[in-house]
């Protein structure tokens, strides 16, 4: 019985890429940003990251064990969710809050819809928005070197000048993972080099945001650069919007998705109540993905010129 013949439907693709390898590549790509966060915000940030990842993996295990499903924590997707969620937290958050977010992300958003591949929105971001609505105060109080201050985006919103160079390096208050653009770009370059992600979504997303901010905000290069480097835009564009499950699979759809994300982010940032809008933009666009895919489906071979 050990050599069962496996009969499966097409496509019969043979490749060394597995879910595991992709997930661990994403984890490796997030390491520079995480390391910078720990370096800047101290060991509590490391604790937040480890505990969130553990909470996600554990809640996946417990749910699957209780529901008598195959245990899938080894594929690393829960760890990626935990990592993304942790990097979206302020460094000095009480530890039980990210744990609660991780449980919500894995059980409610991912497992109740059927596990990996079935969730209709990015679990980590849904968990973050759950926490952001529930604990607005704690989730948006950022400190840097013991000094509590507004994020550059909040400063921009209230009309103050910001230091774009510091934002590029990451010496700014913010969540653990989003602060350092340079560390994020190193990770993104790794993912692109390993062909884990394509550049279609991130580039259209960032470009659209830049154009939107340029047209409707200030016609000023440093203002636009501050919007690109500030907040979670780079992190969101490369690590969260490119999630395979919740982004379109058609090339044209990915471009539409990126443009939609950019417009929503710009709208939320310039005209919304809060300074940041990447999470909500990605979540809302996630829900439009089935529609985008329906309208950008390429014509099947042999169906050219025919209406289906």
């Amino acid at each position, binding site marked *: 019985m050990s050599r069962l013949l496996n009969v499966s439907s097409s496509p019969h693709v043979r490749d060394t890429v597995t879910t595991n390898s992709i997930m661990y590549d994403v984890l490796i790509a997030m390491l520079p940003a995480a390391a910078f966060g720990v370096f800047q915000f101290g060991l509590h940030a490391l604790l937040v990251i480890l505990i969130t990842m553990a909470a996600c993996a554990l809640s996946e295990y417990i749910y699957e064990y209780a*529901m*008598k*499903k*195959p245990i899938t924590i080894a594929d690393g997707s829960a760890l990626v969710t935990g990592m993304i969620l942790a990097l979206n937290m302020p460094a000095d958050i*009480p530890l039980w809050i990210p744990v*609660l977010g991780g449980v919500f992300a894995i059980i*409610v958003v991912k497992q109740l819809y*059927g596990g990996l591949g079935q969730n209709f929105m990015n679990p980590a971001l849904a968990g973050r928005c*759950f926490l952001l*609505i*529930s*604990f*607005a105060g*704690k989730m948006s109080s950022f400190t840097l070197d013991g000094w509590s201050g507004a994020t550059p985006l909040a400063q921009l919103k209230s009309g103050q000048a910001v230091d774009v160079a510091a934002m590029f390096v990451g010496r700014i208050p913010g969540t653990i993972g989003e602060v350092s653009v340079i560390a994020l770009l190193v990770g993104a370059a790794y993912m692109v080099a390993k062909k884990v992600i394509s550049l279609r979504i991130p580039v259209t997303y960032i470009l659209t945001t830049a154009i939107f901010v340029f047209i409707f905000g200030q016609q000023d290069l440093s203002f636009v650069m501050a919007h690109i480097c500030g907040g979670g835009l780079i992190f969101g564009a490369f690590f969260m919007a490119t999630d395979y499950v919740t982004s379109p699979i058609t090339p044209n759809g990915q471009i539409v998705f990126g443009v939609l994300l950019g417009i929503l982010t710009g709208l939320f940032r310039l005209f919304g109540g809060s300074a940041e809008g990447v999470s909500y933009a990605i979540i809302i666009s996630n829900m439009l993905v089935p529609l985008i895919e329906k309208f950008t489906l390429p014509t099947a071979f042999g169906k050219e010129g025919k209406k289906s």
Partner: protein
Amino acid sequence: MNKCAERLYNGIIKENPTFVLMLGMCPTLAVTTTAINGVGMGLSTTAVLVFSNLIISALRKIIPDRVRIPAYIVIVASLVTIVQLLLQAYIPSLYESLGIYIPLIVVNCIILGRAEAYAAKNGVVESAFDGIGMGLGFTVGLTCIAIFREILGGGAVFGMEFIPEDFRITIFGLAPGAFFVLAGLTALQNKFKAPSATNGSAPKSSLACGGNCASCNGLACASNHSTLEEIRRKEEEKAAQAKKEAALKAAAAKKEAEAKKAAQAAAAADAAGTEKAGE
């Protein structure tokens, strides 16, 4: 009198408007932020429901069929106005916190639904008890949801706070929380096979996974195979038995038919013989 008790049971458990019929979802999701609100909304609706059922049932032979809906609405709206004014006069705090949802009781689907489905076809006493049952069922449903939301989102039960402010999950007091709690309670209800919209009289499967293909996986597969094999064997046996019986029956029928034929032939011969004799 038994019928009245049956109506109460039907309204509170068997056809609970919130958890089984899934009616009146708008107030269910909107006002259940605190347990007091849930109870208040439920009891206001109960009051309206009892009297609307009573009046509609009493007038059911007078109201022409074509204009029955406007007639019902007029009755319900008058009652809701009375309830609204009474609440405003005697419980102003509840009136404040329920807000627009009191006038909206007029278009609550439970009230019109019961008028259409029950009060318009049944006697006055039964209809009134149907209203009490449905209203209490609605109150129980709202209070259940509201208690969970108040504990998780507000850290309190009926206004008595016991969870410090830092540990309250505010989202449960907002709109998404209402959906989470309703979905969670409905899932529990399905799990424990309580009466619900989805697990009414579905036949139980003898498969290991309960016939639920969504939860099917490799572990259940083997035992499913043996169960299926057993079912197949039983069916085969049955078929064989049926075949045997059919064959027996057919043989018996054949015999009978032959006997009949012979008898007929004999009779015909007889008749012919007598005819001949008669000639």
